[in-house]
């Protein structure tokens, strides 16, 4: 029997000053080692769900448990250590443009106090995996969108996180690069990293064969999966 890494139980969330709940009783589970795509129209609650997992917001009601940690009970001082166990990938890359590719990828290791030798070894291994070892000295601004996203992925996986979260990681990429990024996620998933990807790229994910969780108006659509996602891509939803 699979072990749940992420467990959402009747989670409600409303942003301060917002008109209504963005999440309306979400029940959702991600097993350890599983790769799941999160789909839904804009405003369905995909990004909010990822924000709750990244502890950028806390759920108003319900329970979010990650690796046995009830996120509502984590104190402010415990948040950094929690985030160190999660790799996050963003649509806008969130790279530091005044540092080299190497330094960007090294940052999570520096934060954790790895030795220089370990940092060098791990960063180069991560850059090699994403195919950017030859650009380690470059500044992010000199890279293409796809390359920047791969730097972001290398930074997210360099600490071998428990869970990889990606919010619209292919939103700014051309189809070829988007496919390459999705394949990278699969490669990390193959070595045991749990992956949760929020995406609109239905045409990409339908061929990959992973579980799809579809959100509609702040609720998980039971048993919807690929069918609902496809309707979304056709503009029916």
């Amino acid at each position, binding site marked *: 029997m699979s072990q749940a890494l992420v467990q959402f139980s009747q989670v409600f969330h409303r942003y301060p000053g917002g008109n209504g709940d963005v999440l309306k009783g979400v029940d959702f589970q991600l097993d350890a080692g599983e790769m799941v795509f999160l789909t839904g129209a804009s405003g369905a609650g995909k990004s909010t769900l990822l924000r709750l997992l990244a502890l950028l917001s806390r759920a108003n009601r319900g329970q979010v448990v990650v690796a046995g940690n009830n996120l509502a009970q984590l104190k402010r001082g415990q948040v950094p250590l929690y985030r160190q*166990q999660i790799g996050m990938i963003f649509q806008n890359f969130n790279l530091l443009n005044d540092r080299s590719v190497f330094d960007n990828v090294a*940052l999570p290791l520096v934060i*954790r*106090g790895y030795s220089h030798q370990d940092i060098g070894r791990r960063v180069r291994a991560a850059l090699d995996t994403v195919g950017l070892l030859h650009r380690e000295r470059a500044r992010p601004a000199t890279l293409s969108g796809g390359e920047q996203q791969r730097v972001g992925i290398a930074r997210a996986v360099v600490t071998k996180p428990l869970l990889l979260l990606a919010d619209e990681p292919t939103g700014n990429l051309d189809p070829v690069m988007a496919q390459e990024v999705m394949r990278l996620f699969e490669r990390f998933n193959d070595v045991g990293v749990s992956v949760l990807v929020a995406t609109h790229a239905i045409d990409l994910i339908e061929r990959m064969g992973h579980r799809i969780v579809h959100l509609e108006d702040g609720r998980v659509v039971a048993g919807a999966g690929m069918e609902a996602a496809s309707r979304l891509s056709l503009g029916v939803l």
Partner: protein
Amino acid sequence: MPVRPNADMQVEGPGWLARIAQDHARVFFFSLGKLVSQPGAALLTAAVIGIALALPAALHLAVNNFQRLAYGWQDELQLSLFLKDEVDEARGQALAESFIKRDGVKQARYLSREQTAAEFRELSGFGEVLDLLERNPLPAVIVVTPDASRSADQVEALAKELAALPEVELSQMDQQWLQRLQTLLTIVERVVLLVSALLGVAVLVIVGNTLRLDIEARRDEIEVMKLIGAPDAFIRLPFLYGGCWLGLLGSWVALLMLAVGLAVLQTPAAQLAALYHSDFAVQGPGAGTILLIIGGGVLLGVAGAWWTVSRHLAAIEPS
């Protein structure tokens, strides 16, 4: 349930002490590099901090020098007892000898009327005036030098006692103005402390404001760092070093200002002292004062950084 790092993420390599040293070495060079990359802004801030540190330091040095001067004068403090005309030389000599045996008297010297007249001729430059007079108007004097170890109150009590002797017409001691000077210096000393405290706060604000702008400029970077799990202590450290560098640079500027000020004052002060037959020379800051200025600058820089960064970091959260 507390957050547990997964086994794969356990930190490898150096122990905690070596890791702290590694962190500090990294931030040391990183923050120094940032400072060097903006030399104009850093020097401008350091100059303002330098002025804020130099002002109380200069006042402190001035008070110290005046105190040294006053202490030198205290050694030369003398009590002049002008004797009545009817006291003859033998009685005057005997009185002076009896004073020497008294507790609290270092020296007592009898000067006859002839000797006081001769001294007046030699020192005053108005000797000819005496020649115009029919008789020497100057009285015999016993010059008493109190023991320097005696307190001002004890010296005053001695002066009162000697002045009350029947042979003494008048007594005169130059202590009152010295006491006033010392009291004034005590007040100035307190003022220096107050000014130091106020300018210390000014340094905190200057450093704080400089780093606040730096924090704002690096807001995106701080957000990214928080996103990938950097604790506040990690983000704070470069700013603390930044404050430390600014304080250190400011203290060097302050020392430079003091050195220039001393160089400018040294010659005229020596010339003034020579006019009063004194070998007094303006004394610069000692090793203790130099260390205090440098240590104070660094401490205020770090404190200002801590105060600002702690306030602003809490307000920056990734969105």
